[in-house]
């Protein structure tokens, strides 16, 4: 295996988010608040052949572990995702995402009259419904394109 391949496929310490719904990798980066300026070493595979899903996306982030809030939102846009925590090139923890009953932070409410969109010391909070999410504060329901509500700081 060449150096170049190794760099793309393996990380030393960090997180591999695998089995992401095809086409959602860039939204996963947005959830993790990763941009070209944010400094992490990241590799992204888009529409990689997969036995389980036909095709999938995959994101590997060096030196970064995910918070529960990030995992919760991730589960909404990539319900089949698996999270692999890597230390010293070994996968030390591997788990599937679970659909939470609520998500806190990460997303922002699309209602521009919602108190959570103002300069108040409060995080966004959504109840997770069978087919969408609902703002705990203003009751606005988001059914389609939840990824559009990812808060890009």
């Amino acid at each position, binding site marked *: 295996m060449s150096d170049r391949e190794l760099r793309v496929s393996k990380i030393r310490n960090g997180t591999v988010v695998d089995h992401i719904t095809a086409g959602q990798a860039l939204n996963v980066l947005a959830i993790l608040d990763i941009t070209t300026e944010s400094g992490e070493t990241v590799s992204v595979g888009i529409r990689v052949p997969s036995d389980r899903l036909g095709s999938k996306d995959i994101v590997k982030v060096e030196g970064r572990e995910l918070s529960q809030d990030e995992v919760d939102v991730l589960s909404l846009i990539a319900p089949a995702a698996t999270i692999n925590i890597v230390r010293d090139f070994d996968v030390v923890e591997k788990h599937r995402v679970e659909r939470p009953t609520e998500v806190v932070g990460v997303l922002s409410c699309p*209602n521009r*009259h*919602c*108190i*959570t969109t*103002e*300069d*108040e*010391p*409060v995080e966004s909070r959504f109840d997770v419904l069978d087919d969408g999410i*609902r*703002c*705990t*504060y*203003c*009751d*606005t*329901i988001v059914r389609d394109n939840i990824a559009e509500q990812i808060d890009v700081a």
Partner: protein
Amino acid sequence: MSHDHIISAKQLSRADIEEVLDRAAEVAEDPESFADRHENTLLGLLFFEPSTRTKMSFTAAVKRLGGDVVDMGTVESSSVKKGESLADTVRVVEGYADALVLRHPSEGSAQMASEFVDVPLINAGDGAGQHPTQTLLDLYTIRESAGFDDLTIGIMGDLKYGRTVHSLAHALTTVDADQHFVSPKSLQLPRSVRYDLHEEGATIREHTELEPVLPELDVLYVTRIQAERFPDESEYREVAGEYQIDTETLEAARDDLTVMHPLPRVDEIAHDIDETDHAHYFQQAHNGVPVRMALLDLMLGGDE
């Protein structure tokens, strides 16, 4: 009353509602016996947008319980203008009062504010969101005039933006009322309200005309259709005209039909209805005082 704060009509069970309405009926029956029940109680009024009527009603309620108000005044004269957050404002003012009443233009503001205070907080309207004391006084008026048993109600006007309608419709599911919604297509119930009503097992029947459903109704709740909801004046006039009622319209109604309106009205209820037995909207507005007295009494521990 098991609630620390009154944020939304949605949090109220049938038992909660009946408890408040029963207490309101006691107040209306014998106001004297409540006159000094809450001496030295101070109610903090935080009105971030003008609503003179609601403010007067809360002020009258606490004064008739023997208490008084401390009033933030207008936003222009307060620290808010200097950019203070709502979370900070309520945390300061809770030190001055035994309970707070909040009116704020942002939806969810009362919910958020309640997370920062220990004294009871009552939502007196959060933008297009909730206004639970309006709902309670509406329910009181309905119970007094038509009763809750086998109730058939028509709710007409702006059902999309009308927050009183959203709260009322939700609360009426607790008494299994038969609800008919009458509005122009463009002002039908929003998605989140339909969702709630479905969750509560209510059947939503929507109409664009009042005529076919009017003869069945025990109560007709009329709301105002605002001109700013329409792209131009002529379209507004054309649409709004179809949702105005007068004595001629009501010829097809039951003799004991109760007509309600959260007021102020413009021209959706003709003045010729005022003198008929159908008109309950002024009584409805007056009911705000005993209902708010009852709610304050229960929240401030009037059971001893």
